[in-house]
């Protein structure tokens, strides 16, 4: 077969190469709890990877002595640092709770639509509550110390 013909033959006869209609773009779908949590879990994971870089920076600072550690500590204690830490805390609990939801799904449980929505709202509620509990506990301990 000539080269052009071979490609034509493949497109016509190999199912995986058929020209299929493309799925509609994601933007035309109304956001739902299920899809929003799915992408939020990924975004939180990427954010936490960035937090992991900060974690290593913090360990380097701690290993380098009190001066470097205090400078790092001041950076975290500044208000941009505190806002990032708050976002990081929420991302941590969202990814933790979302991850546990995924591990439950891996055991082939909780796939009824009502259960999916119930577990989804549980993830949202638990993440908010746990973030607030952590910050209040931390501020309380700082206040006492």
């Amino acid at each position, binding site marked *: 077969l000539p080269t052009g013909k071979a490609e034509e033959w493949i497109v016509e006869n190999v199912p995986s190469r058929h020209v299929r209609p493309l799925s509609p773009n994601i933007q035309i779908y109304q956001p739902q709890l299920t899809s929003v949590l799915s992408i939020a879990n990924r975004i939180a994971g990427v954010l936490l*990877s960035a937090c*992991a870089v900060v974690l290593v920076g913090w*360990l380097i600072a701690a*290993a380098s002595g009190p001066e470097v550690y205090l400078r790092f500590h001041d950076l975290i204690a500044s208000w941009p640092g505190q806002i990032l830490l708050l976002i990081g805390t929420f991302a941590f609990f969202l990814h*933790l709770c979302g991850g546990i939801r995924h591990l439950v799904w891996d055991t082939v449980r909780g796939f009824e639509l009502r259960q999916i929505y119930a577990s989804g709202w549980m993830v949202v509620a638990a993440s908010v509550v746990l973030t607030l509990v*952590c910050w209040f506990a931390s501020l309380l*301990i700082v206040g006492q*110390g």
Partner: protein
Amino acid sequence: MDRHRFRSPLNRAMGLGSAKAGFGHWWTERITAVALIPLSVWFAASLIAHSGSNYQTFIGWMGSPIPAALMILLLITLFWHAALGLQVVIEDYVHSSAQIWMLLATRFACFALAATGIVSTLRIAIGAWAAN
């Protein structure tokens, strides 16, 4: 790792599921996820407990054997899990020739960061031991 419980022989014969290393990737992501539940909760709780601690108190705690060992375990599982997760994100959203470079860069960065974190933790532990 018992793959046979997760993939039926029929599925494998019919070529369903991953033909390559997909199962190993999926399974390792789960193992690290399960390990990260107690390790990350321990770490978060410890950070809160040490909110008001000064440098010496904090270093003394971090340098003691069990916290140092848990910290090293956390770093290994965290960066392993991050490498696997970031790999999937890059494979899904980056379709240009930059993909392979981003995959290489994230994998190298995860290994380098884990190594740096472990060395720092060991240095804190040795420092605390030498101080006693």
